[in-house]
């Protein structure tokens, strides 16, 4: 309940934040909403020596549409995402996910950037980022780079973000009219994290067949993953219940669940199947299918 001692700064510019990161190296951790980091610090599972709070840095939050992208500031809260009309209409699976993270108080504080940088295997947003083909805008002292979501998540609690870099913005390519997306999750009865979460983005051709699909699954393995096989199973087909079922079966085959108090491996694979079918059905429906 009492974190170990640390030093704290809340710089007012990104440059200052980067300088502090450079100065303190591995001892430093960035603090956004704190809803991944502070719980670990209270239990002393994490004991950073130096916290760099991003809250005073201008322009790190906000959601705006520009040139074929939805730009989301890394400090945007889950509540802001869930309440955003832009997100709801342009990336509905992100609104689905944001509204189901934790609980209302958590959503009022937790941020998209914090969640993505933490990369908890049971978190919701990494899964959505994969299915959205999101681009992570990252700023470091060596400059700015953009990391595709698939290259951003590299393992359990691990991203390709360097220790001296800051995730500043998430850019999501916009869907066209015949694209629909959805996220559905089975929540852990206590923590409310995802036992399994499936994000699906479906683009339909004029004839109603699937032009392309992006499907990602999280919660059942060290990190969220895209399921190329399931995407391929949809492509070129009318997304009937049978086709969706077959694609969901490939999602279930792709996960790597562990037996625990929440269920057997077979049960968890079944959950992946069921929630993949639900996400796919909803995405297809939203795509006008």
């Amino acid at each position, binding site marked *: *309940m*009492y*974190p*170990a*001692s*640390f*030093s*704290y700064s*809340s710089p007012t510019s990104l440059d200052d934040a980067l300088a502090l990161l450079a100065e303190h190296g591995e001892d430093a951790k960035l*603090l956004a909403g*704190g*809803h991944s980091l*502070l*719980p670990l*610090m*209270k*239990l002393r599972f994490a004991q950073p020596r130096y*916290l760099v*709070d991003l*809250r005073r840095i201008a322009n790190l939050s906000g959601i705006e549409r520009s040139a074929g992208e939805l730009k989301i500031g890394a400090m945007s809260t889950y*509540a802001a995402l869930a309440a955003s009309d832009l997100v709801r209409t342009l990336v509905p699976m992100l609104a689905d996910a944001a509204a189901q993270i*934790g*609980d*209302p*108080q*958590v959503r*009022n*504080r937790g941020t998209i950037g914090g969640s993505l940088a933490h990369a908890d295997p049971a978190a919701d947003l990494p899964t959505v980022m994969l299915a959205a083909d999101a681009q992570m805008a990252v700023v470091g002292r060596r400059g700015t780079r953009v990391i595709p979501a698939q290259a951003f998540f590299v393992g359990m609690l691990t991203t390709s973000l360097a220790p001296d870099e800051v995730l500043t913005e998430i850019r999501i390519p916009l869907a066209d009219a015949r694209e629909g997306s959805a996220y559905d999750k089975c929540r852990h009865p*206590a*923590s*409310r994290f995802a036992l399994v979460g499936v994000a699906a983005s479906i683009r339909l051709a004029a004839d109603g067949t699937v032009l392309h699909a992006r499907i990602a699954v999280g919660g059942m393995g060290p990190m969220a993953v895209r399921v190329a096989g399931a995407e391929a199973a949809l492509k070129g087909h009318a997304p009937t219940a049978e086709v969706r079922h077959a694609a969901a079966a490939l999602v279930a085959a792709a996960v790597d669940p562990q037996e625990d108090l929440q269920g057997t491996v077979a049960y968890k694979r079944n959950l992946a199947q069921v929630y993949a079918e639900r996400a796919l059905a909803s995405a297809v429906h939203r795509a006008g299918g």
Partner: protein
Amino acid sequence: MAQITVTVNGTTEHHDVEPRTLLVHFLRERLSLTGTHVGCDTSQCGACTVLLDGASVKSCTVLAVQADGASITTIEGIAKDGQYHPLQTAFWEQHGLQCGFCTPGMIMSSIDLLRRNPSPSEAEIRAGLEGNICRCTGYHNIVNAVAAAAEQMRAAATPAHVN
């Protein structure tokens, strides 16, 4: 030590705090506002819920230094001019509390819930209280209390007919 300035229940406070001080400990120990409770250490129970710039937060998962410059409302600050907040009245009238330990957090969460949704359904009330645990009431009368307060607040917000 870090210096912070916060407005708590309308009063501006300047304090030196250790960076590791949680907002809930700052409120309880430095300001003696012990109505905000600590019921867990994993950010689940919601007993520590306060409003930070109007939004409900778990004050056990906010550092006091993160609240620098913010306005905070605790359970002690919601009655106005000696009048209970409608949620306080409703929790009392609907028997929405037993041991009373979760109650301040429940009420603070409910304030935010009704701010976002003045006319919640029963399901929306239950979902809106997802971040608060009660072990006594089975939530039945808490849900009733929030619904009753919502109705009362809507009625109060509707201008009376003038002939």
